[in-house]
């Protein structure tokens, strides 16, 4: 059963919310996402006291008459980072869940799924001047740290996706899945380009564009004083007079974002905060062939 935003909003605690969504997603996939693991030889090392005896390479001792220890690398299928925008605008929500709520539920759910299939999942909470990171790990105990970090996120400050992109490019050493949960309200003109530029570094980039129903429909009639959620700006307008123009501008922005993602070969998912999250994730996973 898919969970709508209203139902989900009544569940307290991110862990419960994430688990509820995960179950929905798994029941929707009908297939275990567990891909298994493999152990791969990495190098030899001269034996030193304290090394595991069982890793001694007896064939090498026979050849060289010295003790060598085999070192192995435990290969995971995927490293992933859930980048959640925690700017002030993400705190906007008119359907029970704010955009940040939806973003972190989705991030938690995906993390849950990844760690469940023994992939590494990390999280980065970003805003202007903030980059709080939980590095990717695949251990089951790591999920708790991810959940805690997500749950502690508070919407404030300006959006700064350009800085986020630069930080990710620096911190991610090899191919990773980067999932960005944001409304992309960034004044920086190149912010989106720089996020999408991660794709050129072989990262798998997926953008989750979080949009509230009120932003899509602009359902205001009476003269209203609109205030900014990131800075002190405000404007008094008659919404009826500008509705057509607003909707035109906003839809153009949504389309431009989507087109930019497609052009950069990145996954793009527009997420309405009032639609069932598991449905969104199923749509996303379905587009990727049921795999992360």
């Amino acid at each position, binding site marked *: 059963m898919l969970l709508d935003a209203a139902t989900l909003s009544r569940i307290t605690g991110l862990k419960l919310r994430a688990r509820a969504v995960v179950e929905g997603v798994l029941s929707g996939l009908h297939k275990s996402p567990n891909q298994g693991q493999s152990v791969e030889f990495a190098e030899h090392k001269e034996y030193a006291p304290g090394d595991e005896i069982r890793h001694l390479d007896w064939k090498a001792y026979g050849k060289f008459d010295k003790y060598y220890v085999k070192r192995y690398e435990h290969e995971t299928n995927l490293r992933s980072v859930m980048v959640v925008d925690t700017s002030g*605008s*993400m*705190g*906007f929500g008119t359907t029970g869940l704010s*955009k940040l709520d939806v973003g972190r539920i989705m991030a938690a759910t995906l993390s849950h799924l990844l760690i469940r299939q023994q992939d590494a999942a990390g999280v980065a909470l970003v805003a202007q001047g903030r980059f709080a990171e939980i590095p990717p790990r695949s251990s089951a105990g790591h999920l708790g740290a991810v959940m805690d970090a997500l749950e502690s996120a508070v919407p404030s400050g300006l959006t700064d996706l350009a800085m986020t992109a630069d930080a990710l490019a620096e911190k991610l050493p090899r191919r990773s899945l980067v999932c960005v949960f944001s*409304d992309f*309200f960034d*004044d920086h003109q190149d912010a989106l380009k720089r996020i999408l530029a991660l794709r050129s570094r072989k990262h798998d980039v997926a953008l989750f564009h979080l949009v*509230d129903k*009120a*932003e899509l429909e602009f359902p*205001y009639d*009476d*003269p*209203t*004083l*609109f*205030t*900014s*959620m990131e800075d002190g*700006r*405000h*404007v*008094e*307008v008659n919404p009826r*007079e*500008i509705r057509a*123009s*607003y909707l*035109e*501008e*906003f839809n153009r*922005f949504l389309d431009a974002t989507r087109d930019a993602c497609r052009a950069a070969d990145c996954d793009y998912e527009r997420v309405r905060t009032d639609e069932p999250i598991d449905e969104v994730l199923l749509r996303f996973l379905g587009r990727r062939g049921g795999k992360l």
Partner: protein
Amino acid sequence: MTFGQPWFLLGMLAAFIPLLVHLFDRRRPREVPFAALDFVLRSQRRTASRLKLKRLLLYLLRTLVLLAIPIALARPSFATQDLAAARRGVAATAIVLDTSLALRWEGRTRLFEVAKDEARAALRNLAPEEPATVVICSRTPTSVAPVGFERARLVNAIEDATPGYEAVDLNRCLEVAARSLDDSPLPNRRLVLVSALTQSSLRLESSPPLGAGLKGEKVKPEFVVRDVAKGKELPNRALVDVHAEAAPQLGPRAWQFTFTVRNFSKEAARDVELLLEVDGEVVQKGFVDLAAEGTAQKTLSWKFAKGGVTTVTGRLEADALPEDDAHSVVLSVPRALTALVINGSPSPQKYKDEAFFTEAALAATGSPVRAVLRDADAAWREKLSDYDVVLLLNVEAPPAEAADRLAEFVNAGGGLFVSVGDRVDPDAWNQSMGGVLPRKLRVIKTAVEPGQGDADTRAARLTQVALNHPVMVPFTGRAREGLLSTRFYRYALFEGDAQGVETEVLGTMDDGAPVFLSARRGKGRVFVFCSTVDRDWSDLPIRTSFLPLMQRIAGWLTGTLDEREEIRAKVGESVTLKPDPNQSPAWARAGSGAEVALTALPQGDGVTGGPMPEPGPYLVVDAKGATLEKLGFAVSIDAGASNLSRHSLDALSDWLGEESVRTSGSGGPESSTPLWTWLITLAVIAFFFEGLLLRK
């Protein structure tokens, strides 16, 4: 501009409401944190100028609605006479409605309809306390009801009015209207003239009429002129005359019609179509070119297939006033006549034969008469009823049996012509034909022996000719002189009139002896010539007048001469007809069915009736409803009425002095839709657009 309910104008203060709302409506807007504020700001910047214009338009439309509604409720009008009334106080009012031919002029709307609207508007604009009357100005204005407050009666009088076919005397109507106001107890008088202001109906030479004040003093009323033509010219062309005459050169029963067309407009017209209609059927077509304010004539001819009474109409290509584009005449086309010519003195030598000249005259080209020649002995065996007329040329007195047949023939409607000569014995003729002849023969008188040297100078001559007789009508001018120069060497003298017998003498000698005598006997006619129709006793046969004279005598004897050609009646005039004794005309019936009673004139001078109400052919019927075909006639429109030249408004202002002159084109109450309706419509439209702007 005046207002019927001025208190409603206070409602115009509501027009300030939008402004006050704009100035003082400072409701605290709801504060809403919004994530996509950048898009709101961008949209506001983008729509700012358009919104400003929209708000301005909204403000204007709302103000317009709030202004238009109270003004409409106040019932505004542009009636200047109301201003005058307000200035001079209430006034007794007489509305003069022009019904002249000009009001039939039809542009987009017939002027008379405009005139009625104007009259109704003038009535409507009167204050309730103003008494009024209406004068329908026809040719002869009828008596006018005294001024009163019965508006419905006046409206009915306007509704019942119809335009005429002639010019009217507006000066006279204004005088009548002014007098009708004399009994009013109000000190002020007002005359409202609703007219096309044509010069033919309104004369500015005489001064405007004055009314009598409360103490009998002369008072100049206030004048308000409503020009139904709205200051425009009324171009018109008219077929003002048709002259019909026989055209024997073109064959028997051929006639030619000369149409006179006048162009009263200031623009020339080319190739104006002119149709010739016979009994309603178009038989000929022609075109005329008309100079500006010029006159042109066009002649069309037509050969009638048979004789009888025929209505011929000339019809001009219709213009804005089609009523004067047609002109009718009623003709009596001579029917083919058969004449029995009885030659009393035949001769193998043509020129000495008694009937030679007469037969030649009757058989001339275009003559409707077919002559059958017989000598006296053979003639009496003929069946007289087969002939229309019998000509006895120097015949011995008919035997008793033949005389009886001749008398019977005449009484039954036949025509008898008698010329004398050496075979005529007065006593014998008197004995056998005395009852038929107009007068009895007395003796044969010889003025001079023919052939004598001085015969031409001593011969007797005609001195007087009755030109009013149908036979003699053509002999005017040089034709008359030619007839009067006829020499008579020998001629018959007649007895005086017998008692109770009416004889017409159509010509007399210098000694007073009758030359031509005519009389009616029963239904027939008798014509006697006192001399010979060959050259023995007179040189008349070789005169140019002989041929038409003989043809007309034959025509008159058979009753086919069109005596009614002379009836050239105009609309509004009376018509006098001269019926045969056995006819008793009672009504003249117009094409529209309108009937005019005909009354007998004293002393049997015919019947008269009128005025004729409309142009066109009229049928004459007797009391039993039978049509008297030969008495039919046509009535035409007077050319003066077709002249629609108008007085200028300046000239009218000068004539009326300082009084107001206004036209119906100024958007006043003459408009069929009142002003308040337009204001309400404007308000609704403004309201609609306001809603449209709000929806956007």
